[in-house]
């Protein structure tokens, strides 16, 4: 695979300015080597008592799991875990098993026999997955977690501790079925484990979603890719965020890897492209000087897959220094968009109509300006848009719980900057 790294920025700064912003786009292309990359997959199904209400949930979850098993390519090590207030393997017993016609058939039969009962303790489910992945360090490690409820049967501190243990060990995509689960809770899991989070309001949609997720996981070719950021002596990294396809703040995930170098985990890559916003504070140099404010490398192990440079040039020319990079402006807007949706929905839940109206109005304006039509559509199910240009909105009197949760869950989805 080749990693094409491009940097978009206005490198010109006025004299004395310290803050350097850049959008770094990474496009991974090409196919993996002839031999498919080793992969390991754990599917975690919520089997708590509530999955029976309505019964369609468990039925759909079983179907979806079977579809995911069918989507595993031969040789992929896999397991299915049933989660309640504890966790147990449904298939196989003990260690992961390689996917084959026989093991797929046996796994699907075991899934069909699943019954529900008990509570929800997501930390213990992830803990078991982490144990199962042991010994598969060189493989792409991916988990799917499906739940329909809140993490009620363990202390939040326990989940936090497990997440800390699992970080960097495997990627986990999370799905909430129905509307009785907590968006913030699942987002915490997916953010920590570099996966996606989404709502499947209608259980009937689970099969297609699981198939797509598994296919996506199977399409990954390089595991454990890090974004390495070098910054000059005396510089301070203000933030590193993934800004497309979704907003993920990586700043706190930094691991120092040598003098002036830090690594930020990005998980596994297939043929895809992601954008990052890097913001660095440097010691200003003299007018006319060119400085390297950051060197961004995508690394897997010791191999550098691609590299881009973030520069700073100090100038007296205001025409140059006041220009705003279109890419930086766009993603700064997308970050604000995600923030105001979450704040607006929080205010709405708390019954603060004025604040909710102001925040969601701002969101409508930002979504319209940036051409984020998906988010604009979701917003229009929660507010009546009077004028998208000014962001004048009224909260809808009746909003389905599914629509409200969908907007909250997908608030971090960003639109790409329009080129040209």
């Amino acid at each position: 695979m080749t990693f094409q790294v491009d940097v978009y920025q206005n490198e010109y700064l006025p004299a004395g300015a310290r803050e350097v912003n850049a959008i770094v786009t990474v496009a991974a292309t090409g196919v993996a080597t002839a031999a498919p990359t080793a992969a390991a997959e754990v599917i975690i199904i919520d089997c708590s008592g509530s999955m029976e209400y309505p019964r369609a949930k468990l039925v759909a979850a079983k179907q979806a799991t079977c579809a995911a098993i069918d989507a595993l390519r031969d040789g992929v090590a896999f397991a299915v875990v049933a989660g309640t207030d504890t966790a147990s393997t449904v298939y196989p017993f003990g260690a992961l098993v390689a996917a084959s016609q026989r093991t797929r058939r046996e796994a699907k039969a075991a899934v069909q026999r699943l019954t529900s009962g008990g509570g929800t303790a997501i930390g213990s489910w992830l803990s078991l997955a982490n144990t199962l992945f042991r010994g598969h360090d060189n493989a792409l490690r991916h988990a799917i977690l499906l739940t329909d409820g809140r993490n009620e049967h363990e202390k939040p501190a326990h989940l936090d501790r497990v997440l800390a243990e699992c970080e960097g060990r495997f990627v986990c995509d999370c799905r909430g079925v129905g509307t009785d689960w907590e968006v913030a809770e699942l987002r915490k899991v997916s953010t920590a484990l570099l996966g996606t989070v989404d709502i499947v309001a209608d259980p009937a949609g689970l099969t297609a979603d699981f198939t797509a997720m598994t296919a996506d996981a199977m399409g990954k070719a390089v595991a454990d890719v890090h974004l390495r950021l070098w910054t000059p002596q005396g510089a301070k990294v203000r933030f590193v965020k993934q800004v497309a396809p979704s907003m993920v703040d990586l700043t706190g995930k930094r691991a120092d890897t040598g003098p002036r170098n830090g690594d930020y985990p990005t998980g596994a890559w297939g043929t895809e492209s992601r954008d990052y916003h890097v913001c660095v504070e440097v010691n200003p140099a003299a007018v006319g000087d060119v400085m390297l404010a950051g060197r961004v490398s995508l690394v897997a192990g010791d191999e550098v897959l691609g590299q881009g440079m973030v520069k700073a040039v100090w100038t007296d020319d205001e025409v140059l220094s006041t220009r705003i990079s279109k890419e930086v402006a766009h993603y700064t807007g997308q970050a604000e968009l995600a923030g105001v949706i979450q704040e607006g929905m929080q205010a709405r839940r708390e019954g603060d109509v004025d604040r909710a109206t102001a925040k969601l109005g701002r969101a409508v304006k930002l979504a319209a300006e940036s051409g984020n039509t998906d988010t604009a559509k979701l917003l229009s199910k929660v507010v009546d848009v009077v004028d998208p240009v000014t962001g004048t909105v009224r909260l809808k009197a009746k909003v389905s719980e599914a629509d409200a949760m969908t907007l909250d869950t997908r608030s971090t989805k960003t639109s790409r900057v329009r080129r040209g």
Partner: protein
Amino acid sequence: MPTCPDGHDSATDDFCDVCGRQIGAVPVPVVVTAEKPCPVCGESVVGRFCEGCGHDMTVAVTAWTAVVAADRAHFDSVSSTDEELVFPAVRRERVVPLVDGDVHIGRGASAEIDLAGDPGVSHRHAVLRADPAGGWTLTDSGSTNGTTVNDDPETIAAGVPMPLRDGDRIHVGAWTTITIRSGTIRAGEHA
């Protein structure tokens, strides 16, 4: 191993892997601070602060100077019975920085502005004195022929300080005019 303009050894050869400066860029000139006279006390200063008076060299001050010249117009206006008095053929202009304390106008080594060539100047003719407000005054010391200022034909009263302004012309002796200059300058702009 490449070295950056700031002297760091760098493993990378495009930009310094220590400070980020471009390798091969022109080094920033090392500023050697030249000695400058302090505009307040005249001490020779290296760096920002004068060791003589503590003056901050980056702060602008008002500097006063006296420009001493033989003045034909003044010579012609002086009524003299001495037929042998001849306007000097060689005229030299002197610039005397007015720094501090008293600057004596007279004839002989005791005068800072020594006008030995001008027979109309008394030994102790007049004094230029810094006043506490930062300006300068002129006082006639009881000279024989007196002191006039600008176009006023009347001599100034002896012993009475007269405030000076930029451009004032002090006429003494047979042909000497001392022009007072004051202006805001920074130390570095001294000639």
